C-alpha cells in the first residue's frame, strides 16, 4: 500500500479544507482530481508533512504521516506547481543541491544530477542559468529535482500547467515512462482530465474537501453503463427533442455522433422505438464507457 489515509480533516482557520478524507492508493499511477479549492494541494502538503492534520491518521509507504515525515520525504519526490527555481544557479547545481539535501553524498548527487537531466531532456541545457529557461524547461527541471534521489513515490502537482501542447505531450510521455517502466509510483494532482486519463490507472476525485469517487479508472467508468453512442440517418431534430422529453441528456459531437445519457430505469430499446416512430434510422449503436470527463462531471456535479 503506497498511501493510506483515514478520516483526515484539516482546516485553515474557520475554513474546512479536508473533511474526512479516507483514501487508499495502490501501486501504479494515480490521479488526484478535483475543481479548484477541492483540497488537492492541501492533501499533498499533508502527505509530505508540511501540514499536520487536525484529525485522522495516515501512512505513506508504511510511514506514519504524523510521526515520521522525514522518512516519507526521503522516499518521496515532489514536483510543485510553482516555478520554484533558485536564481543564479545552473540546472546541474540546482539538481545536485536538492539531491544532497535529500541525503545523497555530494559527488553522487552531482553524477546523478547529470543522469536525470539527460533523462528529462535537459542534457544540452544543463549548464545554462535557470533564469533563461522556458516554461517547458522549468517543468522538466522540477521533475529532475524530484527524481534525483530516486524516490519510490512521486508527487506531481499540476505537472503540465503553463505548457504548450508539444511540451505537455513530452512531459506526459516522461510521466508515463516513469510510472509504467521504472518501478516508481506516481500521484498526479491535476485539474486537466485528459492528462490523468493518459497517465493514470487509478483516480481519486475530491470535491469540497471530501472524496467524491476513488478507485481503478476502468472500474469507475463501468459504474455507469447508461451512456450510448448513436449515429442516425434522417431528420435528427425531432428525434433529439423526443429524447430530451424522455429525460435523456444528449450531446452531439462535431462528426454527428450522438452521446445519449439514459436516466436510471430507462429501457434502451425505447431509443429504437422512438427512432422508428420518427422515421429515423439508427446506423450505429454502441454502449459507451463514460469518459473521465463524464465521471468527473457526475461526481463533482458540474457539466
Amino acid at each position: 500500500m503506497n498511501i493510506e489515509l483515514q478520516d483526515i480533516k484539516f482546516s485553515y482557520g474557520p475554513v474546512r479544507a479536508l473533511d474526512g478524507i479516507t483514501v487508499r492508493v495502490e501501486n501504479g499511477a494515480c490521479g488526484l482530481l478535483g475543481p479548484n479549492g477541492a483540497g488537492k494541494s492541501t492533501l499533498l502538503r499533508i502527505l509530505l508533512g508540511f501540514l499536520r492534520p487536525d484529525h485522522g491518521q495516515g501512512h505513506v509507504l508504511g510511514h506514519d504521516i504524523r510521526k515520521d515525515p522525514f522518512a516519507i520525504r526521503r522516499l518521496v519526490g515532489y514536483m510543485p506547481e510553482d516555478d520554484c527555481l533558485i536564481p543564479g544557479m545552473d540546472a546541474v547545481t540546482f539538481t545536485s543541491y536538492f539531491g544532497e539535501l535529500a541525503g545523497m553524498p555530494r559527488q553522487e548527487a552531482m553524477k546523478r544530477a547529470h543522469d536525470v537531466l539527460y533523462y528529462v531532456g535537459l542534457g544540452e541545457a544543463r549548464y545554462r542559468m535557470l533564469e533563461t529557461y522556458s516554461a517547458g524547461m522549468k517543468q522538466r527541471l522540477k521533475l529532475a529535482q524530484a527524481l534525483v534521489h530516486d524516490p519510490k513515490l512521486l508527487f506531481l502537482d499540476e505537472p503540465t500547467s503553463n505548457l504548450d501542447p508539444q511540451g505537455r505531450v513530452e512531459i506526459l510521455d516522461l510521466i508515463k515512462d516513469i510510472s509504467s517502466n521504472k518501478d516508481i509510483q506516481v500521484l498526479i494532482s491535476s485539474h486537466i482530465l485528459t492528462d490523468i486519463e493518459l497517465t493514470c490507472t487509478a483516480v481519486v476525485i475530491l470535491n469540497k474537501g471530501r472524496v467524491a469517487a476513488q478507485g481503478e479508472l476502468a472500474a469507475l467508468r463501468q459504474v455507469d453503463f447508461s451512456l450510448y453512442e448513436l449515429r442516425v440517418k434522417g431528420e435528427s431534430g425531432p428525434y433529439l427533442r423526443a429524447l430530451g422529453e424522455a429525460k435523456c441528456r444528449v450531446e452531439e459531437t462535431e462528426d454527428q455522433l450522438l452521446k445519449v445519457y439514459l436516466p436510471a430505469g430507462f429501457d434502451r430499446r425505447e431509443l429504437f422505438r422512438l427512432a422508428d416512430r420518427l422515421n429515423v434510422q439508427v446506423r450505429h449503436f454502441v454502449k459507451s464507457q463514460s469518459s473521465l470527463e463524464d465521471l468527473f462531471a457526475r461526481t463533482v456535479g458540474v457539466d
Partner: protein
Amino acid sequence: MPIAEQGYVHWEGRLDVRRRPWRPIVRLGIRLAFRRKAFKFVLGMAFLPTLVFAAGVYISERLDDFKEMIRGADRFLKVDPEFFKAFYASDYLLFWMLIIMVLAGAGLIADDLRHKALQLYFARPLRRRDYLQGKALTLCFFLLLLTLLPGFLFIVLKVIFSGSFKILAEYPWLPLSVAAWSLVAAGFFSFYTLALSSLSRNRRYASILLIAVYFLSDIFFGIFYGIFRDPAFTLLSVKSNLQQVAAALLGAKPFFEVPWEYSAAVLAVLAVLAGVVLSRKVRGSEVIK
C-alpha cells in the same frame, strides 16, 4: 528538444541520515555570494581595517624605527584591549559588515520566498531549524572571517613580532574575548539579516530594510541625545549597542555611560524578535489563517 536522451536508471546508493543537513545550504550560500563582483569588492574593502591594524601590530614592535612617522601617536599602537576595541567597534568595520550582510544575506530568504523555493527545501528531510541554521551559518562564515580571523591574527602577529607571549600573559582572557565578541556579532547580525530578509519577497526591499533599520536607529539616537543629553538613548541605536557590548567583552572602557548589560539585553531582545519573525515567515507551505 528531444526527450529521454538517456533512459532512467535507478540509483544504487543509500541516502544518509545527515547529522548536519545544513552543510549544502552553507556551501551554496557562500558560492552564490562569491559569484557577485560587488560582493568581492566589498569583502576586500572590509578587510582594509585588518591590514591597517596588522600593520599597527608590526609598528608597535618597531616604534623606534617609525618614530618620525608616528610623532607621539604611539599610545594608539599599544596592543591591548583598547586596540582590539578600536578595531572591532569602529564605524568603518561595522559599516562594511552591514554591507556584506546586504549583499550576501538580504536575498537568502527573500529569494526563496519570492521563488517559492521553501517547498522544495521542506520536501526534503530538512527541518526548519536546519534550513535556518544553513542560512545563518552562511552569514556567520563571512562575519567570522571579518572578526574572529583578524582578532586571532593580531594576537599571533604580536607574539611573532615581539618574540614573546607577553600579550597573553598580560591579557590571558583576550583570545576568549575575541572569540566571544566575534560570536556575538556574527549571531546578532545573522538573526538581524535573516529576519529582515524574511519580511520581504524582494531582496532589494530587504536590503533597504537592513540599511534603514541600522542607520535610522543611529539617527534617532543622535537626535534624542542631542536634545536631552541623556546617554540612555544609546539603547536606541543598533550600532551603539554593538559598540558597548564589544567594549565590555574585550575588557575595554565603554563608549557611553550606560551599563553594557542593558545594551546586551537590547541586542538579545532584537535577536529573540528576529527568531519569532523567522518562525512565522519560514514555513514549508503558506498557511492562510
